[in-house]
């Protein structure tokens, strides 16, 4: 809410005043900058884009080759034993499933290591926070950038699948969006984890105990229907599982109302992780 004095003050300003060249004297300039500003977010994202431009080959390689290796190993390897799963060719089943894996690799891991290095070793965050950028803008920008990247890289397995004969429904155009939404949550998770661990070596615990089970028990390589009930319930708490199911429904053209609930679950996951990442990063950076 504007206080009554604000419009009056604005009216007092001499006409034709150029604020850039003639900054308001102290005291008068108590104009509040908004809490989260788009300019600050795009500024931080631009830094990421320029850095990505300097190392894009490594980025693309790391984020796409690994899931494609999984796809080929499982799809072609297991494909000799298993021909059809849930009414689909196994290779199609796996290529749609590995979208989630690709998203995880390109977002959570990058966020975890990237934010740790930028915070502790390169002191990039100190540099950024000495400009008019606050922690919530910094975190939002970096997570958003990783989500966009994850959305694009995450869709690569679908292209590989098409090369191996996958016949995508028109709803496949939503796959990058699903990947982006999932990526937002996982990039924020990575940032959150980075802000709570003591040292960079602690990431080994997270990778083995959290991310590996998450991507294996997501319905990527085998259906969860045959698992004990407890596992199936746990899987419903796994955001990667929702991602996998959404990507499959989009690609195979089986979109139904449950998918809306899955989108809701991913939105909730993204929002919670974003909040946690902002909060924990702030505590870590601002003493």
């Amino acid at each position: 809410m504007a206080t009554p004095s604000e419009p009056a003050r604005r009216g007092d300003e001499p006409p034709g005043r150029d604020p850039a060249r003639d900054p308001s004297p102290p005291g008068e300039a108590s104009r509040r900058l908004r809490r989260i500003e788009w300019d600050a977010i795009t500024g931080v994202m631009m830094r990421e884009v320029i850095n990505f431009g300097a190392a894009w080959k490594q980025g693309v390689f790391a984020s796409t080759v690994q899931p494609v290796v999984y796809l080929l190993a499982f799809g072609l390897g297991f494909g000799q034993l298993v021909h059809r799963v849930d009414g689909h060719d196994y290779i199609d089943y796996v290529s749609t499933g590995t979208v989630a894996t690709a998203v995880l690799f390109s977002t959570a891991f990058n966020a975890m290591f990237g934010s740790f290095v930028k915070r502790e070793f390169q002191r990039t965050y100190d540099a950024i926070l000495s400009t008019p950028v606050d922690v919530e803008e910094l975190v939002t920008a970096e997570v958003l950038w990783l989500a966009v990247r994850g959305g694009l890289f995450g869709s690569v397995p679908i292209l590989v699948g098409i090369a191996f004969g996958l016949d995508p429904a028109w709803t496949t155009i939503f796959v990058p969006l699903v990947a982006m939404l999932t990526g937002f949550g996982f990039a924020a998770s990575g940032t959150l984890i980075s802000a709570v661990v003591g040292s960079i070596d602690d990431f080994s615990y997270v990778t083995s105990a959290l991310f590996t089970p998450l991507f294996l028990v997501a319905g990527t390589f085998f259906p969860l229907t045959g698992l004990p009930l407890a596992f199936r319930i746990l899987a419903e708490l796994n955001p990667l599982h929702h991602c996998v199911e959404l990507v499959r429904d989009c690609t195979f053209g089986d979109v139904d109302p449950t998918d809306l609930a899955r989108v809701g679950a991913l939105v909730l996951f993204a929002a919670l992780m974003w909040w946690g990442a902002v909060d924990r990063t702030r505590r870590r950076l601002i003493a």
Partner: protein
Amino acid sequence: MTRTLPCVASALSVTALRKSFGSVHAVAGLDLDVPEGTCVGLLGPNGAGKSTTMRMLTGQTRPDSGEISVLGFRLPRESKQARAQMGVVPQLDNLDTTLSARDNLRIFARLYRVPAAERDAAVARGLEIARLTARADAVVTALSGGMRRRLLIARALLHGPRLLLLDEPTVGLDPQVRQELWAMIDGLRTEGTSILMTTHYIEEAERLADTVTIVAAGEAVDEGPPAELVARHAGREVREVYGPPARLEEVEGAARAAGFSTRRTGTSVAILGAEGAGDRLPEGETRASRLEDVFVKLTGEEVA
């Protein structure tokens, strides 16, 4: 006290600032004032709370208590507005080392909200200030320590800040590079930028600062123009007496008994304000008093 005239506004003022980390009182009731258009040196030994103070001025550390006003903005609440109008040069180089000098400046022109139409000109001017126009596309890792530091300073000036915070601007650099940076900083002050600079190099404070605030254990012990501080605490002349440790102790005792203050220099005892003492003091070499004498006298002989 040689405070500024009341009509001169403060670019930065700090009152009774406190910050503790656990049982360590990093900043313990610091008062500080940077009148507009002047350069103030925050001079103190390692661990005196200089860096913590600098971080509180950018909102990166929250004070436990005390008032901070930067360019008329109250911190920490309005720190973002303050940051939009000030430039910060950190002690530790935090450039993007895999990027070129130009890209480093492009990113910060954006972060400092330089309007899109003026951004290219701001980057070109920054490269000129850093004298890196010819090496604009060189990756930071290929630049020398002096070049990197100039780039770091130029990065903080992209948006034409009214206040510049310099944290140990020449630490770890060669004397030649240091002199070059001093010329650069002096030029900025001449152009009207207010500057707060921390340093533990006495010569740096002596050459650049209009006013020096000496800090020890998180508190300002005294402030004033360097020459006044010297006159106030060390007089015009210092008599240095050399000798073996036992002799030094003896000299120290005698000088103090005669009402003089002394400081150790490592190899000698320096008796401060020795002008006109004649043979009331032991014989020694006479020299002009320096800010270093004041520094050691006020911040203690031993650094924790």
